[in-house]
């Protein structure tokens, strides 16, 4: 069994109004050093080992459902599941 951690982020070219709002709050709190906030998604998927290649599976599910490649990028890490 593998645990796959998938990080989904808005593409650089896409404005992130949520991130901008959070950045504004952080500035109000006195954290002037914060120069940018981008909000994304984190998914954890458990995958049973099978004849199918795990990277192929992860890329397929990301491209077909978990992300929208028009507006989002993703990266992932594969770990042993406990």
């Amino acid at each position: 069994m593998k645990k796959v951690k998938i990080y989904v982020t808005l593409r650089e070219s896409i404005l992130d109004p949520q991130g901008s709002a959070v950045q504004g709050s952080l500035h109000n709190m006195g954290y002037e050093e914060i120069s940018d906030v981008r909000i994304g998604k984190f998914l954890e998927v458990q995958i049973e080992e099978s004849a199918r290649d795990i990277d192929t599976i992860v890329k397929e599910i990301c491209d077909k459902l978990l992300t929208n490649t028009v507006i989002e990028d993703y990266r992932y890490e594969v770990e042993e599941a406990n």
Partner: protein
Amino acid sequence: MKFAVLVFPGSNCDLDMYHAIKDELGEEVEYVWHDTKDLSTFDGILIPGGFSYGDYLRCGAMANQSNVMSEVKKAADAGKPVIGICNGFQILTEAGLLPGALLRNKNLKFICRTVQLKVVNHNTLFTNQYKEDEVITVPIAHGEGNYYCDDATLKSLEDNNQIVFTYSGDNPNGSLADIAGITNERGNVLGMMPHPERAVDELIGGADGLALFKSIVKQWRESNVNEA
């Protein structure tokens, strides 16, 4: 002419759509559940607004994986009129039947009010009953209607006259080029954030949306008479 109104778990404009077609337009209409595997008996497909699958993951993402969507693609390929309104528009972009994507409204608010739309292209099968550059009043109700696409896509939308409706006056959601509704390149698939099906009777605040549905029926009658 017989319309299908698709129903997903979480659709909530399906009743308005059904009412608009049956009672105001006077055409045949049926509700169709999302796991239906055949839409061949319908002449037009309507994907209503709402919050399919609770808008989980992304608006329209899971609805796009429903059985019925491969039938919607077949209908679109066959040249049948397909309309997605609000969440339906989001589903059509997720399906790749329309280019681009819908992002969170720029001000992060859910906006529910009437807006003015400009009919930028009145030579489509959805807008032939409007005048050139006519300004119409239609309600909007969405949190993620901020249309986005890349520069090359925008240029092709403009070059092919695929931008059908733009917000007139103020842009409520920050959409690119004030876009409120677009068609596919062939012109038989329309996606729009505003709700024409909620503007079909003067008694409830206006009937500017009715001409959109009348346009489809007119085109359908003409092409079927010609073929007969």
